[in-house]
């Protein structure tokens, strides 16, 4: 699918540059990717065009095999492509769980037929996937999974309830953990795929404290899942899930980076608090804590950069294990400081009397509380660090 066969990186870079110049619509240049809203996509003609061209080129999934529509690029070429896209102001129009988590996992463990069927639509951004792992009462603890899949010859009959289904109300397909053996815990779980339009699948959005509903409860009643949709061996779902979750973790600490739209704390404070005669923020107690948070963010960012470099150079990076806790901690502190700066304007909910930025600060703060809970809670991360990295013994008593 790619026109580049040679190893010559410079040549590839030139080609990528030329292709982008020709194919990336100038109207989309520079701005943030506008297509990632949680709801259904509504694209402008130029956005549609760009998505189409990237789909044809396979460069939304640059390192995936060309045989399934991917870019077929080497890691070095993919990095060069990203650099060229950054330079051009271009963005990757594809996103979501299919691209980030399921695709890489399927490429590792799925059958040829499954790959041929499911990878190309991911490459082209045509199918939205959701994840059916969590269940009510299970939380971080997937081993107590209760959704059952009964063997009915050519298909499984699935009954149970999933929760925290991210974007379930907009998803086309679901990758799901089901119990296929009740006698064993981890070793009785299988990994299946099903169409969300299958009869018996019902989703109900859950309203969160921030007022948004990014997750659903998903009820499964006599859902027929053809056996061809079992990924990997029967009762082998646990290992697949672990592999898939590794792709998830890296994403969440990225939340620690302020969105471009967010004003830095100090700028916000200059407006709400003002400067003293010496040019310092007029409230020195607040100023010291803003500086402390800026410094924490700076240290976090330097660590993320260091981990990236170390990982690329092939050395093991102990730093990666701390990114999630450090990033989410600092991000939550930042969100709380933002409210403190805003005073009463930091508890506005909606309507007149508040600026958009003020209302967004409140919602961001509330939504951010989830960052220490999902994707491996802060506590689970601490356990992992103390056991896997520091080699401390299993907890037994205290």
């Amino acid at each position, binding site marked *: 699918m790619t026109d580049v066969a040679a190893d010559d990186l410079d040549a590839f870079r030139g080609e990528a540059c030329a292709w982008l110049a020709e194919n990336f619509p100038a109207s989309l240049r520079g701005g943030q990717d506008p297509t990632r809203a949680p709801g259904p996509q509504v694209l402008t003609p130029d956005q549609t065009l760009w998505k189409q061209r990237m789909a044809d080129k396979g460069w939304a999934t640059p390192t995936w095999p060309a045989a399934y529509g991917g870019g077929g690029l080497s890691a070095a070429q993919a990095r060069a492509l990203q650099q060229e896209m950054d330079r051009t102001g271009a963005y990757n129009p594809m996103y979501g769980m299919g691209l980030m988590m399921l695709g890489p996992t399927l490429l590792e463990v799925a059958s040829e037929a499954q790959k041929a069927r499911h990878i190309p639509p991911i490459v082209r951004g045509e199918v939205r996937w959701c994840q059916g792992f969590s269940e009510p009462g299970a939380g971080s603890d997937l081993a107590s999974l209760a959704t059952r899949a009964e063997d009915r010859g050519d298909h499984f009959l699935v009954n149970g309830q999933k929760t925290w289904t991210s974007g379930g109300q907009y998803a086309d397909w679901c990758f799901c953990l089901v119990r296929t053996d009740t006698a064993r815990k981890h070793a009785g779980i299988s990994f299946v795929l099903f169409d969300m339009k299958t009869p018996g699948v019902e989703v109900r959005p859950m*309203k969160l404290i921030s007022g948004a509903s990014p997750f659903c409860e998903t009820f499964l009643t006599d859902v027929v899942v053809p056996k061809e949709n079992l990924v990997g061996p029967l009762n082998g779902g646990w290992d697949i899930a672990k592999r898939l979750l590794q792709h998830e973790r890296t994403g969440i600490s990225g939340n620690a980076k302020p969105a471009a739209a967010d004003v830095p704390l100090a700028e916000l404070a200059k407006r709400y608090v003002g400067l003293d005669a010496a040019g310092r923020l007029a409230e020195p107690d607040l100023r010291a804590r803003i500086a402390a948070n800026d410094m924490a963010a700076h240290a976090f960012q330097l660590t993320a950069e260091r981990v990236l470099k170390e990982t690329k150079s092939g050395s093991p990076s102990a730093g990666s294990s701390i990114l999630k806790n450090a990033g989410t901690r600092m991000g939550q502190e930042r969100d709380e400081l933002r409210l403190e700066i805003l005073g*009463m304007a930091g508890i506005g909910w909606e309507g007149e009397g508040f600026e958009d930025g003020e209302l967004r600060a409140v919602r961001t703060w509330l939504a951010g509380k989830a960052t220490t809970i999902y994707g491996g809670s802060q506590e689970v991360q601490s356990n992992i660090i103390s056991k896997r990295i520091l080699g401390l013994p299993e*907890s037994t008593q*205290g």
Partner: protein
Amino acid sequence: MAILTEEQAMLRDMAKGWAQEKNPVAAFRRMRDSGAPLGYDPVAWREMAQMGWAGVLIPEDHGGSDFGYLSMGLLLEETGRTLTASPLLASAVAAASTLRLGGSDAQKAKWLPTIAAGETVATLAVDEGPRHAPGQVALRAERAGDGYRLFGAKRFVLEGEGADLLIVSARTAGDPGDLEGITLFLVPGDAAGLTRARLSLADCRGAADVFFDGVALGDDAVLGTPGEGFALLDKALDRARAGLAAEMLGAASQAFEATVDYLKTRVQFGQLIGSFQALQHRAGRMFMELELTRSTVEATLAAIDAGSPDAPLLASLAKAKAGETFNLVSNEMVQMHGGIGMTDAHDAGLYLKRARAAEATFGGQAFHRDRYARLKGY
């Protein structure tokens, strides 16, 4: 828990029974979901007034019971536990205290009885920006014939949407930031030239911006000595801060107890999560902070009752400590409940939002750290 008189113990038990049985968090949730414009349930407020709660700080000859601040603190703590929204703090504590401390006999006779009966909802209109700064008064009171005309705006006035009486700090001399030249005025809610804009807050309490476009007042509307209103206001604010700290203590206590209960029932990885030592120590930390907060709140209320000169220092201590502790506990409530605590259907989010709103009201931790240091002379 402070040593209570028999009267106080009865009052506390009554309040606890009413709040937990007749006005649990579910009642607050219903009020919120109904979109009640006032930010409280008028029926519940009538019940509270009928039990005499609005008159606890009002002298007997003006229809109150004069039970004092420690008693009022018990009511606020118990209703705070269930997040009960009502004008108790704004009207029966903040405004009633200001009138009692600074009002003329005529002013007291006019307003206190209906405040005690819960018929008049009164409030303080203090701040003009989003951050608490009672000395930053720009709202002008201009001399006009035998009286004054007010021009300017007050922001985030508690119960501002429904208040029948507003006690407004206005500038009769000097510039914003000067503590001299501030005068307090009693402004009826239906005064010509007064308009309001309701605010929708995360904790769903009633608040409004209030605009004064030449509101005309007679000399009899002046509360206390003209130009010397800041001292009176500061004293009244301390009473409101102490009351709010009591409410926050109650809310934090119930949030904590709900969390400990959850630790005792929720199973993960085949264990009660309350058996995880890291969570146990964090729970122990919260318990410690709650006990420390209780001491500061009760000491502040007692100091106000005793007329102690330490009351301002203690009020700042209690408000800061309560803010810190309520934030800690409500954050941990969400974190320890995990995903379920993130849902709107669970109460954790309600406590979380109330914590930050109460923190911002009448000065947050940094405001009171600064004030504490100033009062201590450094």
